[in-house]
């Protein structure tokens, strides 16, 4: 899959808008000020994912997953290293310091944080596509990142939009990774739509 630099720029802008909206929402509902780094976006081939060493092998990660279907289908997944994810939740909820453990209550909160991010990103994409997309209910997992292999192998993805961003909350720094795994044809559809927007914008100017 060859993606032009212009398309990648537009995709990066889309992700930036989505992540930015999510950060602004999070700041409204939490007691801490959250800053996010400019997301790094790249499109990777499913077969490359294991060689990227995104998180240390065997590290347990907290993952929020949302499937979407329709003309544009696939799976979005937000991943945090589990230990720092618990600290992130404790900081944004203003909890008293204690053991950073992801119990069921904190996991639900993390699911909400993940949900906000995924929705921000999917909202941005939805605005470009202007087509109805159906969504599953968000799911939460704690597992090694290896689980992604399962999704990739079972969903015949033709491309993964990989977005990494860092959360800075007070004195903690947590890296979140958003995987947007697109089913066969979906990446092409998205790129076509992006090009249409590009064309309209260019002819307009």
């Amino acid at each position, binding site marked *: 899959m060859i993606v032009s630099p212009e398309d990648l720029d537009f995709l990066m802008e889309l992700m930036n808008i989505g992540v930015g909206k999510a950060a602004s929402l999070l700041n409204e509902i939490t007691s801490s000020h959250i800053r996010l780094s400019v997301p790094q976006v790249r499109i990777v081939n499913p077969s490359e994912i294991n060689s990227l060493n995104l998180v240390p092998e065997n590290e347990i990660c907290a993952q929020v997953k949302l499937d979407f279907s329709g003309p544009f289908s696939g799976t979005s997944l937000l991943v945090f290293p589990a230990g720092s994810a618990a600290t992130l939740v404790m900081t944004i909820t203003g909890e008293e310091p204690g053991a950073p453990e992801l119990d069921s*209550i904190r996991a639900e909160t993390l699911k909400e944080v993940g949900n906000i991010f995924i929705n921000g990103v999917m909202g941005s994409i939805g605005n470009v596509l202007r087509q109805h997309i159906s969504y599953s209910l968000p799911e939460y997992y704690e597992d090694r990142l290896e689980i992604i292999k399962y999704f990739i192998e079972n969903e015949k993805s033709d491309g993964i939009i990989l977005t990494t961003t860092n959360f800075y909350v007070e004195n903690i720094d947590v890296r979140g990774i958003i995987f947007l795994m697109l089913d066969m044809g979906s990446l092409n559809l998205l790129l076509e739509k992006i090009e249409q927007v590009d064309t309209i914008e260019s002819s307009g100017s």
Partner: protein
Amino acid sequence: MIKNLTETGEDLSLFDFLPVGICIIDPDYNVLFWNRCLENWSGLKTGEMTGSDLRVKCEKLKSSHFIKRFGLIFSGGPPDGFSSQLHKYLIPSELHNGKMRIQHTTVIALQTEVPGKYNAMIICEDVTNLTNEVQAYRSMRDRALMELDERVKTENALRIVNTKLNLMNSITRHDILNQLTVAIIFRDMIEQDNVIPPEKKAYGYLNKMEIALNNIQQHISFTKDYQDMGIKSPNWYDIAGIVDKISRSSSFSELEVKNGLRGYEIYADPLFEKVIYTLFDNAVRHGKKVTRIEFSAVEEDTSISIVCEDNGIGIPVNDKEKIFERGFGEHTGLGLFLSRDILSITGISIKENGKPGVGARFEISVSKDMCRHSEPV
């Protein structure tokens, strides 16, 4: 799927039987459906709520972040979740004890018959009990961690105090032994110079002085052995290896030793070797005619007995417990007393149950979690 709710509202009656609060609103926040569970929780009747603006009863929905997130739902966006930690009481509902019901809420978009128009279904789960249990668990865990931390600090402080006491003991023992040596030398010089003839009463005092000085020496040696006990952490020891090592020493070279403990390891104080040495030493010293010592293991349901038998004169019935008391016997009277203490550090017991005249039989009883096979037996 659910469409045109105002006309087919009766189809939603199934939701009245669910143990979760369910409410459906249109993009103007007007309530289209309010299930029985929400009626019970909030005290607000379905008739009263239907058609009303939900924001009047749930003021939180007026805040900008709810408007943005619900806006995405009304445009057909992905489901959204509102966690109990960040939004405890989305739909106000009081419990019988006067406290508020803690909720976890999920909101999903429902497509209507009008293309591009979506309603929102709000699903509230009561997580009050779960939250209370998690909080109780957290506070218990934090308390346990705090106590553990305190214990570690106390242990470290005790270790330092113990080190200082041991140092002081060693120095004091060294100084006493020096002075004792001087006293023994002077006593010997008095005897060698024949200043006191053997028939004099004072000569007897010299002998008593010698006994007293030797006793002091033994007591001092005992304090060293006792001080070493429990200083180092217990560990796993190969029992057969220890028996072999001791049996090779010159003091016991004439004994026939049968070692049936191959493969057994014991979790004991590092002074465990001294216990086995004491058994050898006692056999030779008190058994009179001992030519053979046999070590074996007897496995029981929950424990293993390490048995040491000899072919000496045995222990008289009346002395079977006394031999473990401090000061008993013809020698120092410390060996078996110390052995029992050394073993007790890891919960191991020792007793003598041989037949007088046939031989001594010491039985060391170890629970199975303190004794294991290092190789197949």
